[in-house]
């Protein structure tokens, strides 16, 4: 007994007066303490399992919500029109989902060659026939449209840039003060009816060379009152581009067209900077051949 007490006292004074032993003791106690802490937390972890699973479920739901948002945001992977309809449905409403057909497929690619300085400019895209790219498909970006595919090799495709003399794109001009173009059939709603003024008017977008950020909008009828900053959207009539993609905005005041007295010449400032094209999506209209054969029948009559 005396021995134990004396030894205890000895250890106490050893730790008090000897730095090395004290350091070892402190370190060892730290290790032992850490070990005990770890064992304790391992034991307690089981009691927290319910909370952990609850938080994981919550996180799961959050991520699922983000995923469905992502489908909307990452336009244009799918036609936005059909997407909006799809996402407004209850996800388990399989019958209604069957009724909705996506019209467009989007093939993601990158621009590996581009020019803007010439009179006729081309884009080279790193997707080709092996990726289902075919001549005639439109090329869009998240900020607008970029061109139309003309030539295809197995792994690359050559697209006519918007900045090309032959470019002629079917667009609509949409009044900036009208309801947003995302609301469908805006022209038929009550406010537009009361105003007795058309919200939209069809036109053709061409490039006359020069400034690579400006295109020319022709064949907009004179009775349509054009204002600066009116939106220029794809019409969706050409089967090349989906409907209602923002191409640009009206710049300056329109002039009368000397060749065609019933229409305006409008300068359009492009939304997409053609000099910095990088990620693009090639638009594959799934019903292109079907509609094309229909058009051919009409022609042959």
């Amino acid at each position, binding site marked *: 007994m*005396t021995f134990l007490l*004396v030894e205890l006292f000895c250890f*106490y004074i*050893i730790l*008090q*007066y*000897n730095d090395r*032993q004290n350091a070892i003791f402190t370190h*060892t106690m730290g290790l032992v303490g850490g070990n005990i802490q770890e064992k304790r937390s391992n034991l307690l972890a089981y009691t927290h399992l319910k909370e952990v699973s609850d938080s994981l479920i919550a996180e799961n739901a959050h991520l699922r919500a983000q995923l469905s948002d992502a489908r909307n945001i990452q336009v244009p992977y799918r036609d936005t029109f059909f997407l909006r309809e799809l996402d407004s449905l209850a996800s388990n409403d399989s019958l209604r989902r069957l009724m909705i057909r996506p019209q467009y497929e989007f093939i993601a690619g990158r621009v590996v060659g581009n020019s803007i300085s010439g009179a006729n400019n081309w884009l080279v895209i790193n997707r080709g026939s092996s990726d289902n790219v075919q001549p005639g498909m439109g090329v869009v970006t998240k900020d607008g449209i970029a061109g139309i595919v003309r030539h295809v090799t197995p792994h690359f495709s050559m697209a006519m840039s918007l900045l090309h003399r032959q470019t002629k794109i079917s667009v609509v001009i949409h009044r900036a003060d009208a309801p947003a173009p995302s609301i469908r059939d805006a022209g038929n709603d009550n406010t537009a009816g009361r105003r007795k003024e058309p919200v939209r008017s069809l036109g053709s977008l061409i490039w006359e060379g020069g400034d690579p950020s400006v295109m020319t909008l022709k064949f907009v009828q004179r009775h349509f009152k054009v204002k600066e900053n009116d939106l220029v959207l794809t019409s969706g009539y050409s089967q090349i581009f989906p409907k209602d993609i923002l191409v640009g905005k009206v710049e300056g005041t329109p002039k009368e067209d000397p060749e065609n007295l019933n229409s305006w010449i409008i300068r359009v400032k492009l939304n997409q900077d053609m000099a910095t094209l990088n990620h693009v999506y090639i638009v594959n209209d799934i019903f292109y051949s079907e509609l094309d054969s229909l058009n051919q029948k009409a022609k042959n009559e």
Partner: protein
Amino acid sequence: MNNSIFPSIWRFIGLVAVQALLLQQAGSAIGSYFNVLLYPLFILLLPIQMPTPYVVLLGFAIGLSVDFFYTTIGLHASAGAFSGFARSIILAAYKPKGGYSGKEPVAAPAYFGWQWFVQVAALFFIAHLFWYFSVNAFTFVYFTTITLKTLASWGLTMIFVVLYCILFNPKN
């Protein structure tokens, strides 16, 4: 019994002095593995009849005295206290037939013969040295080093113990 107090006091002072003034220098000169610790002989040569708690306390006292010179407060004190405790066990194990009588006041070769004394002293010192080096290292991570130090120092120390007993032939 009374006669044995003064020799013990003298032994205490003498061994601490020798330990502090000579053996400490010698030990540090030879190297860290050789550490001659002669002072525990004081504990071993305390009266056999002395109760163990006193022996432990006296072991603590001489150890602490040595510690003051070694500037390792508590280290030798701990070893000394342990040795005091170990002595009672060793002496009990090496009890002669019929036990210890008052005729043999101290565990010295003069009473029990050299063979008995060297065996007891060998065990006693190996216990003391092992404890000392263990506490010095303060961790059994260096168990091999502790053992090697103990054996090396023990061999050297035993020579000094035998020399001491030949020179002074302690009788009480």
